[in-house]
């Protein structure tokens, strides 16, 4: 086992275990903490996949921004965070079976594509070496390249504008007249 594989397994355990805590913990604040840990594990995967820029973005956006929004929302709606009630709704058993079915199906497909049980469609081998070391520069160029992602790039700014305007309009309390 190489050191990369060891790191991968540690990260996978961190990500999945804290993911489970997120969906099962009664204390919402602890769930949010676990969610941050899970995000952190995902950032580790990005590093292993040689996308360090995305790993840093993951920290900056998910942990530094989205988690803060979520914790704010938890605190603002905190009065209802009673810890004795069940965290699940009435349909949770059906949800569990449905999820197991879907998850099992996806994993079955992955295993049958990549493993000796089925026909090997995609070679399950080492990644090709990166031709361009600077994947970040490649990414930056693709955002403003008219042949690539310039339209999504501009649409993203419109989406952000919409989100900003919409959420300010929704979240601001009505002016007392």
């Amino acid at each position, binding site marked *: 086992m190489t050191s990369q594989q060891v790191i991968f397994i540690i990260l996978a355990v961190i990500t999945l275990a804290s993911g489970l805590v997120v969906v099962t913990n009664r204390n919402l*604040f602890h769930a949010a*903490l676990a969610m941050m840990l899970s995000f952190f594990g995902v950032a580790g995967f990005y590093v292993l996949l040689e996308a360090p820029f995305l790993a*840093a*973005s993951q920290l*900056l956006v998910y942990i*530094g921004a989205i988690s803060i929004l979520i914790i704010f929302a938890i*605190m603002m709606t905190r009065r209802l965070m009673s810890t004795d009630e069940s965290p699940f709704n009435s349909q949770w058993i059906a949800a569990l079976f449905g999820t197991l079915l879907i998850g099992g199906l996806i994993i079955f497909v992955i295993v049958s594509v990549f493993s000796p049980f089925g026909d090997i469609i995609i070679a399950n081998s080492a990644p090709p070496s990166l031709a361009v070391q600077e994947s970040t520069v490649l990414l930056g160029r693709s955002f403003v390249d008219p042949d690539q992602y310039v339209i999504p790039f501009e649409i993203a700014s419109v989406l952000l504008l919409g989100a900003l305007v919409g959420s300010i309009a929704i979240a601001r309390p009505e002016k007392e007249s």
Partner: protein
Amino acid sequence: MNPIDLLIATLQLRLGEYLVSVYGSENWVFVVRDVLTVLTISTFCLLIVIFLIWLERKVIARMQDRLGPNRVGGRYGLLQTVADVLKLLTKESLTPAGADKWAYNLAPLLIVMTALLMWAVIPFGPGAMGADLNIGVFYILAVSSVSVVCLLLAGWGSNNKYALLGAFRSVAQLVSYEVPMVLSLLIPIILAGSMATEAIIGAQYIPFLFVIPLSAVIFFISALAETGRTPFDLLEAESEIVAGFHVEYGGMKFGMFFLAEFIGTLLMSALFVTIYWGGYTLPLVNLVLGVFGLPPIDLASLAWGRTLSLPIFFGKVFVIYFVFIWIRATLPRVRIDQMLNLNWKFLVPLSLVLILVVAIVDKALPANTNVWAYSGIMLLANILIAVGAIELLRRRGRQERAAAEAAHDDELADISAEALPAAHH
């Protein structure tokens, strides 16, 4: 492995290269080297704080015409901080009733971790750095954004109204000032064409401080706010919210917040030096040497270059750090609405304008422009924007003052109009 070579390699800060030359490029050699580097950087950070606290107390005392620490450790009170650390170590460590134990205990740990982790990409000398990541500056921003979460953890975990209120204030402040900091850091990256810290140092033929001074000023102001230093120390505001998010912490757990603040301030100085002042190099000296036709000093080619660059680097860092202390001794604390207005209504629009102008100027100039002409035009653009912004502020300030005075006069008129008839009766 020869002990004398080992010693020389250590003193030259080339231990990693020495180990590789002896044992070959095995992975375990790199692991050993990395572990040693981590231990060195972290221990250095923990120990320098003892000195920094002493320095801060002494300098502020001098600026306020006091003596400062002068009992423990001789005439200059050199060991005062050591005594303070011992005191913190022997205090009872309390956990307040009703505290969220996870959050309460995790916060001091995490905040020091983030403060330490940022040092990984700061170059102390040519090649002497933890890891030369190609996203260096962005990595620092990402790690520093995690520290915001720690404050929320501390505030929430303490089960204290003041702590929670302090945490909310801190988050509003840190989160707000992260925006101009991020935006101002884009500008040196545009100029250097890379996010790696060492590449940015290499790009500074003329230090960026003299090419894009406005970006440096915006960065410095937001660094003040990000580290929670005066005039932006609303995080602690002893007189308003007791001590902010760490009111319930005592002993070494409190010490950790203190530690993180000082490491963070030193890091911001180091980052400023790296990005705007040529880091461990001597660009201005090299320019003067160039005028006389002498070759520039190239530390990277010297065997002892890394060791020699340390005093250069830390000399600059302590100059910037001194400015931090100076500002603390000079300016009073701002109000929370002033702090937020300064950020959102001044710094953010200003840095957006600055990015646009720098981007346009950079592309408008032909690619083969002389570095002096390029820097001169950039500097001119910066000065023009700064003058324009100040003029705008002045006009706005005059308007507001006029409006306030008019309102005040009206009030006076109303009072006298009401009061006079009453006096007749």
